[in-house]
């Protein structure tokens, strides 16, 4: 198991220093703090509608294009 060299943690002397380090580096929050589903409203709602239309048009065009190429 890899160990940290003393010179790299000279600035951590007490539990408090370690806690501060862990908190600042977000080491233990990693992958834990939940991210909630966003409420889509306003310009974002419009953007999603435009995106769906864009994807639908592109997919149809691409399918037609590939059929044409084949």
């Amino acid at each position, binding site marked *: 198991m890899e160990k940290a060299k003393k010179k790299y943690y000279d600035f951590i002397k007490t*539990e408090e220093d*370690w806690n501060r380090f862990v*908190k600042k580096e977000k080491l*233990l929050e990693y992958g*834990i703090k939940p991210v909630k589903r966003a409420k889509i409203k306003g310009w974002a709602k419009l953007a999603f509608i435009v995106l769906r239309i864009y994807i639908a048009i592109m997919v149809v*065009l*691409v399918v037609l*294009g590939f059929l044409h190429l084949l």
Partner: protein
Amino acid sequence: MGAGQFGDTKRYADSSAAKVPVDVNLKLDELPQDIRLRAIDRLKIGSLRHSKSRLARMLLMLALIGPGILVMIADNDAGGVITYAQTGSIFGIGFFIPFMVLMVPVAYIVQEMTIRLAAVTRRGHAEMIWHRYGSFWGAFSLIDLLIANSLTLVTEFIGITFGMGIFGVKPVYAVMIGIAFVLAIMLTLRYHNWERASLVVAAFNLIFIPLVFFAHPNWLLVASSFGSWHVPSGFSTLFIYVLLANLGTTIAPWMLFFQQSSEVDKGTVPEDIKAARRDTFIGACIMASVAIAIIVLTGTAVFSAHTSDATTSGYNIAFILAAISHKLGVLPVKLFAIGLIDAGLIATIAITASTSWAMGEAFGWPKSINLSFLKGRKFYIPGIISMLIAAIIVLIPNVPLGFLNLTVQVIASIFMPAALLFLLLLVNDKEIMGAYVNSKLQNAASIIIMGVLILMSGLYGISLVFPNLI
């Protein structure tokens, strides 16, 4: 690593024994493997931050570079190198030189947003899309990314086999060497060493810069191109096609996923944003310098005024290298081949990692290059499989590689607007970004760039399947 295993961070913050001397190595031993190794890296950075010496400042700067330079150089992949070589061969020295300089802020502004997202949320792009916008958009993004990444890897292996072919290596051996090289870096090194090894590989991308001097270009012509933005062969369908191809080469969906995940794995926190921005800007400058070098090289050695009716397929890489060999000799061709192999390798390293990270983020698997293969096999296997599929495709006789290349670009053109929209939505999301949301100026720049990219992506996608439409 279970979500609850280390979830109670308060037990550290509220410890009544706060002034008790601490054994850092004992504390590190309590952490899971990936977080422990990241903590060791971050201790080194913390130590450098606490030192006021100039040497420490310099070492800190070096320690904080990585994802930005990697993503930008990996963007100059085998397909990119071939696109730039074709651009110079067909259009010479003119419009595309200043155009590539313009790509520096474009690439920087887009990628910078992934830095802030990573530093603030400590999550990758795939994870954020999945959790914030639901499983439909999460799956849509993931599937698109996986298909595009696998097919892009095919173009990387084409570059690797072609480049090694110049040195007489048979395709099957070239592919095996490529796979062995990427696996060795990915599976035997922890994140910090993987990043450093990848940066060394990336450094070989710079080989194209001294290569320019073999061609003895007219530097006055290069300089004057910034004033005139001259298109030697005039505006044509081919010009628009090459313009779109260069734009598509500059910003690809995998880059957003790669840099955000890489910054998370590196341990980037808000305090590092300034350094990560510097890293990305340096990377963007290198990317443009290499692209310009290739365009100037082929624009000098291959371009002639009679190419106005040329096609990109007519100017394939074999033809271009034959022309370089004829005019400049064998050495520049060999150096170009080394650059092409390197471009394929560095992009394979980055794209394989981006596939693994995205899968890990989407499915909640452990997701760090700090993990050993045994502990992180779920994380490593998707990337490895995508690489193996690409390698096998390249070795299949008579496989329609042109068609596959076209498919990857079409998928990217459909996927790009979605990826950019999610990026913009996430980076403006006050609930998750707090004070790090885009400023009005950043939004204005981002919206203009994204608008142009989305329009161009759409046009490019359509032009690929309906070549006579534009």
